[in-house]
């Protein structure tokens, strides 16, 4: 034997044998080295879900619209009212920031903490009627929402899970140099129980305490996230807050179409009716198309175009400064009423996401 033969025996031959042996291994025959395997838990995601936004910076703007305001104060729920004054609102829009940071993210629990800030600036022509002082105030200041929230996803086993979400919001006509009392912080929460039958479906039912409709309410909620077999079409629904169909054009482009109900109750500092402080119950429904596009790495663009339908832009007096619950059946009077004309809106943002 010459040197070449020895080189083959000591180098290439063992590799060849290794490859041959690997081909013959039946991995069905493998079991756990210790007593049992890792417990399988339901994942918080399904295949084809839209990108999960860790950080999002966006700008929202609405087209010009007409607003109508009542002339007096004191209206029962559902009561008709006459338009006293109207005004054009030339500009409505502002910055939106959102951060959602994982604190614990393991297969048996996911706990996230987040913060959000939304600012809406208005430009109103000729404010008038009962709303005049409010609109004058909105012209000079703006409406802001600042909140902290936490979400816990707790899988119970391979199929079932619980979701808890809690949020505190500080809403009003404040500025960073002029904060109000934190006594009027709004608290929201949601609890859901659900199932994840397979990798393309998760659903859940639950209840929430929410200000999405402007004023405090307690509503049942339904989550239904589904992706089709080819992972092109699907739905992402959290009813009644939002519901979307979706279509993955390709792995870098996602189209969504549906609606979102957005709302908050804003404390209007420095303004009052009958010596009572005021809350602006603002809510709007946004039917829309949304385009999500991968820019680079884990940075995605999101752009929305849709219609902004007014749901509520009414005023409530807080007797003794205390929040109250009207719900669907309460008979507490509104302080003043308004109707905002429908407008077109657009939103553009950049997100740092996880898929």
């Amino acid at each position, binding site marked *: 034997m010459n040197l070449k033969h020895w080189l083959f025996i000591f180098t290439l031959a063992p590799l060849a044998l290794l490859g041959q042996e690997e081909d013959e291994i*039946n991995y069905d025959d493998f079991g756990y080295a210790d007593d049992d395997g890792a417990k399988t838990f339901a994942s918080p995601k399904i295949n084809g879900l839209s990108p999960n936004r860790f950080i999002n910076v966006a700008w929202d703007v609405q087209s010009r619209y007409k607003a109508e305001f009542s002339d007096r104060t004191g209206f029962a729920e559902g009561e008709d009212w006459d338009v006293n004054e109207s005004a054009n609102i030339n500009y409505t829009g502002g910055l939106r920031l959102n951060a959602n940071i994982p604190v614990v993210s393991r297969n048996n629990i996911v706990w996230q903490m987040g913060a959000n800030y939304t600012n809406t600036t208005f430009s109103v022509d000729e404010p008038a009627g009962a709303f005049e002082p409010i609109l004058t105030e909105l012209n000079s200041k703006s409406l802001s929402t600042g909140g902290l929230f936490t979400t816990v996803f707790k899988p119970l086993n391979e199929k079932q899970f619980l979701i808890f979400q809690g949020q505190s919001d500080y809403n009003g006509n404040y500025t960073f140099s002029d904060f109000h009392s934190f006594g009027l912080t709004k608290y929201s929460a949601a609890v859901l129980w659900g199932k994840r039958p397979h990798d393309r479906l998760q659903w859940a039912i639950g209840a929430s305490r929410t200000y999405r409709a402007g004023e405090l309410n307690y509503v049942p909620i339904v989550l239904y996230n589904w992706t089709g077999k080819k992972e092109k079409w699907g739905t992402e629904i959290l009813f009644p807050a939002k519901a979307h169909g979706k279509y993955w054009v390709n792995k870098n482009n996602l189209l969504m179409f549906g609606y979102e109900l957005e709302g908050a109750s804003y404390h209007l500092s420095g303004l009052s009716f009958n010596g009572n402080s005021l809350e602006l119950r603002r809510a709007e429904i946004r039917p829309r198309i949304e385009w999500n596009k991968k820019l680079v790495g884990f940075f995605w663009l999101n752009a929305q175009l849709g219609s902004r339908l007014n749901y509520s832009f009414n005023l409530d007096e807080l007797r003794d400064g205390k929040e109250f619950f009207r719900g669907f059946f309460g008979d507490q009077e509104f302080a003043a009423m308004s109707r905002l004309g429908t407008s077109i809106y657009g939103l553009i943002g950049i997100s740092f996401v996880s898929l």
Partner: protein
Amino acid sequence: MKKNKSIVFVLASLFMLTSMVGDTTEEGDKLIGVWEPSNKKVKVKIDKISGKYYGKIVWLREPIDPVTGKPKTDKNNPDESLKDVPLKGFRMLKDFVYAGDGEWNDGTIYDPQNGSTYSCVIKLKDDNTLDIRGYIGVKTFGRTDVWKRLVMKKKKK
């Protein structure tokens, strides 16, 4: 006499150094083997190649794509030329280096379900359990999964 002492010192140092390198290698090689993620969908065989650790999919619970009726391929890979590569045999863990203290880092993990590659750190919890954390940029933006070691249970007939 002095020369002899120097030789002894050099030899002793070399011996200690090689022993230390040997220990580190041995510790690092605890990663080698067949492992199963907590979702039990695949089995991954981790090997050492040129001093780094790599893991490839050697078994799939559902090897056939229900849409095409053919063996599953890496259809979510962002690289068009790799979409037809079979998932079985796909190298999903790459470039891990043993950093000591039961931890391997500098590697990446690929998620075939969405075609994304994440930075990754592996921690040996005990001889048969790994904590594998895939993350984006910083470890905060990540998720940890538990993998268990598998061994051959049945003997070949």
